[in-house]
């Protein structure tokens, strides 16, 4: 197993994880943001168990979406600022695997914690225990898609002044399918009394498609942005 793409993938993954480990404090930020957004919804909406329960899947998914958006900002920024990105683009290694490694490391640090904490928040919103499987599975399949697609947007707006607002405008419309199937899979189970399997299968299909095409598009966007 010494494919050159794999070697560069491993090296990049190790580097990014190490950097994340050295900045342990920042790891908590997306997570705290996520919890706060859900809390805000619970405070803003009338606290009636029936209401909270119906909106819980949507709230959890929208919070995950926003949290993914905000954390994406840091995906390439520091590398862009200290010139690492240019070196990465000049290197003979496959940009596809380098980008994939970066996104994977980023998701492990900013996406996976959301999946882990989500059941707790869902309980607080009164989501029935039967829906927990769908909740965890849909987030596990969906949040990597958010990171992969968001990486394209981040790469496009690299170094622009109005970055923060811009990325939501670019990326949110593309997030629509993930949101619909993610929240749909949770509510299908306990509200509509239907099977959630087709929803999860669609999410899995999105993940496979995004894994194949998104790093490629991200690589192209990086080449455009860094010249």
């Amino acid at each position, binding site marked *: 197993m010494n494919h050159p793409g794999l070697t560069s993938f491993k090296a990049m993954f190790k580097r990014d994880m190490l950097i994340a480990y050295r900045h342990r404090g920042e790891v908590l930020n997306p997570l705290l943001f996520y919890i706060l957004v859900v809390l805000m919804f619970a405070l803003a909406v009338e606290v009636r168990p029936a209401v909270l329960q119906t909106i819980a899947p949507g709230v959890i998914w929208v919070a995950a979406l926003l949290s993914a958006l905000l954390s994406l900002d840091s995906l390439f920024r520091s590398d862009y600022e200290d010139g690492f990105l240019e070196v990465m683009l000049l290197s003979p290694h496959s940009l596809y695997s380098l980008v994939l490694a970066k996104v994977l490391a980023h998701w492990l640090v900013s996406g996976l914690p959301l999946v882990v904490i989500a059941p707790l928040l869902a309980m607080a919103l009164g989501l029935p225990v039967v829906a927990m499987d769908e909740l965890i599975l849909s987030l596990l399949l969906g949040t990597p898609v958010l990171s992969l697609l968001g990486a*394209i947007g981040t790469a*496009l707006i690299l170094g622009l002044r109005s970055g923060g607002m811009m990325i939501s405008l670019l990326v949110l*419309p593309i997030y629509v399918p993930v949101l619909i199937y993610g929240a*749909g899979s949770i509510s299908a189970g306990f509200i509509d009394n239907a099977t959630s399997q087709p929803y999860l299968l669609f999410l899995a299909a999105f993940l496979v498609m995004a894994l194949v095409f998104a790093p490629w*598009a991200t690589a192209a*966007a990086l080449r455009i942005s860094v010249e």
Partner: protein
Amino acid sequence: MSEKLNWFKYSSPASFYPLADKMIPWFFMAAILLTLVGLYWGFFQTPDVLSDQKQYYRIIFVHVPAAWMSMWLYIVLVGWSLIGLIFNTRLSFMLASAIAPSGAIFTALALVTGMIWGKTSWGTWWDWDPRMTSELILLFLYLGYMGLQSAISDPQRIDRASSLLALVGGVCIPVIYWSINCPDPNQCAALHQTSSLKGIEANILFAMLIMVLAFLAYSFAIIIMRVKNIILHRERNTLWVTEALEFKP
């Protein structure tokens, strides 16, 4: 003697510019003429009362052509972006960015006329009907495209970055449309009827198709005009532009 056809003759802004000048009046005249015919036919040559619709159905002559154009223009935009990225032709990028505002306007027009029609016919301005929602998302794709263009200052990066964005959007549109339209095959509920061009009355169909052609001609005219502006702006430091803009008595 067969002269070799030069496919790229008009791909240079300098040679496209005079051609654009010649094309604009024709397309404008066609647009005005077709609009007059289409609206006349739509208002005076069609049956007054359909089985379930009243006079207000006549908004169809603006609503449907606008909705069709909004989608068609995005496809054309993606096409020019793709051609631009492949062949690296400046004019393709210019065409793509000239299409975006027209596309956004048609999308907004389709949404507004749809809301007016919806209020009279369904009794509500807005409903999260799949087609309405996807049209709204399309509007945001157009706005995102234009927003990205205005956020970048380097023209080369504008062209390539926005084209890549248009491509990503183009790949996602079918998925978005179908995810909104039918998340669960068992429960597809929509206020819009499924399109039924065959069942439509011949005069209404005729007026509607004429209006589609009118909107198409208008788009051609206005987009070519916008391309002219973009060319002048981008190439303002070249010799041919200074010569073209010189005052000729």
